[in-house]
């Protein structure tokens, strides 16, 4: 079992957002969750990522139950890819040691190689925090490269494809494909059509999950 959520409750300041969520995902499953904006999708993902502690119920990810341990098992690509104001290299490695060879391997998988080699400073080019110096699609692919580099068994995607325009989406989709292949994935979106590759889709509504 890759992900096990049982009767999970979560509230912000006593306002419940998730009311008794249960979810099971086996290794390699691709789960989609759809729901209107504000229904609690990002909150659920943060719990699955070990960023929040469940207030009641169980969250188990790849055998880990404590948030600190859960975080080791997941990689996450967020809605508006937040980059560090640092080099592309540092954004991908997050300061962890990594061989030049695997770094380029990661860039290749994230569809970044062509763009990076066209830059005067290459992989050491400085990027702004909100991707100030890069396009949305490039920032997204750097965030995906970061996730690929972590090589975690569970991948969490928060609206990873919702904000893409047609021109850049194919490269991002190819990058996402490389990231998610043969891993357990929870993909969250407010648009049903972006979840077409998922094996199972749920709707989050009123703090509960309904299988579609």
């Amino acid at each position, binding site marked *: 079992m890759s992900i096990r959520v049982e009767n999970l409750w979560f509230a912000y300041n006593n306002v419940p957002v998730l009311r008794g969520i249960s979810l099971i995902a086996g290794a390699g499953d691709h789960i989609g969750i759809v729901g209107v904006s504000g229904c609690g999708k990002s909150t659920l993902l*943060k719990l699955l*990522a*070990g*960023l929040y502690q469940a207030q009641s119920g169980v969250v188990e990810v790849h055998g880990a139950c404590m948030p600190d341990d859960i*975080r*080791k098992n*997941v*990689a*996450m690509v*967020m809605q508006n890819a*937040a980059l*560090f*104001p*640092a080099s592309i290299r*540092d954004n991908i490695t*997050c*300061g*962890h040691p990594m061989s030049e060879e695997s770094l380029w391997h990661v860039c290749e998988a994230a569809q970044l190689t062509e763009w990076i080699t066209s830059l005067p400073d290459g992989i050491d080019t400085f990027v*702004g*925090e*909100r*991707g*100030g*110096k890069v396009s949305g699609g490039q920032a997204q692919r750097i965030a995906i490269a*970061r996730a690929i580099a*972590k090589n975690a068994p569970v991948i969490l995607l928060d609206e990873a494809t919702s904000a893409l325009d047609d021109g850049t989406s194919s490269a991002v989709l190819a990058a996402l494909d490389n990231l998610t292949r043969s891993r357990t994935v929870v993909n969250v979106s407010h648009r049903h059509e972006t979840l077409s590759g998922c094996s199972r889709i749920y709707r989050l509504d009123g703090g509960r999950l309904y299988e579609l």
Partner: protein
Amino acid sequence: MMRGLKKLFDITGMFRRFVILTLLRLPFDPFYNIIHALFLKHAFDAVNDTDKSALATACALFGVGSILLFLNNGTVWTIYSAFVARWTAALRRKLFRHISSLSLKQMEERTAGEWITRLNADLRAAAAVLDQPIHLPHAAVSLANICVSSIILASASPMMFGLVILFAAPHLLISQLAVVRPMTRLAADVQEAMAENASDMDTVIACADTALVYDAQGFLLERFEKSSLNVMRKSMRLHRRRALGNGLIPLMGISGYLAMLLAGGSRIAGGAMAFGSLIAVLQYRVGFLKSLNMFLNSMTNIKTAMAGVKRVCETMSIVPEE
């Protein structure tokens, strides 16, 4: 420097009011210096002649003159403080309006930390032109006093004036070259380092979730510490320069004083000068040097503030798109 100040007042307006307040403040130092010297001269002459009533008159006139001067000075400074508060608020408002009128694309070209620094630290640094303890009006006031003291000294005793200049000139030269001139550059380095540091601090907070998932907090904190250290190093360079300027004062001051005492003493012994006149000349010298130091300090401070002024003007000169 003048161009930067003009630009700053173009942004804020209120230049006329500033000039009027400075002009009102201008006579204080020369008048005080003259009153002080005249008092010393007449008091010592009276003591010399054992004329009690002349001494009493000198004391009374000095007392009344000082009270009137300080009254004028206090009133002007009070109005000035209120003016500076309004002026700084106007500058902040203009700066904020301008930054918020920029397009998203222009906003995104710089980090949040950079913008926060432009709104806060840069503004504070620029406002220092008018609101730190020694600032632009002080430069004007001390310059006025330097001129008045020089004229009086030169006509009272050209030889003594020559001595004052002889000992003040090296101080002026060294301060100008080693302290005043590099200040803007050193301060600009500090502002830049602060912007980078603010951006690193902002990242630790804004990217907290990403940092947690990717175990990058250590990496981000290390960056923050590095840029904090850089701010400290850059600030230390600036403060060491300022300290150098202050260290020069006693050295030049005491040797000049001794030279004048020796020259004056021999003239008094030769009957060419009254004791009261020597005391008065020494007082004009004190006024001259005090103003020279104040002038150098104001120039150091203004030059430091110019780094902020430049950055504020640069921010204001970004042309909003669309």
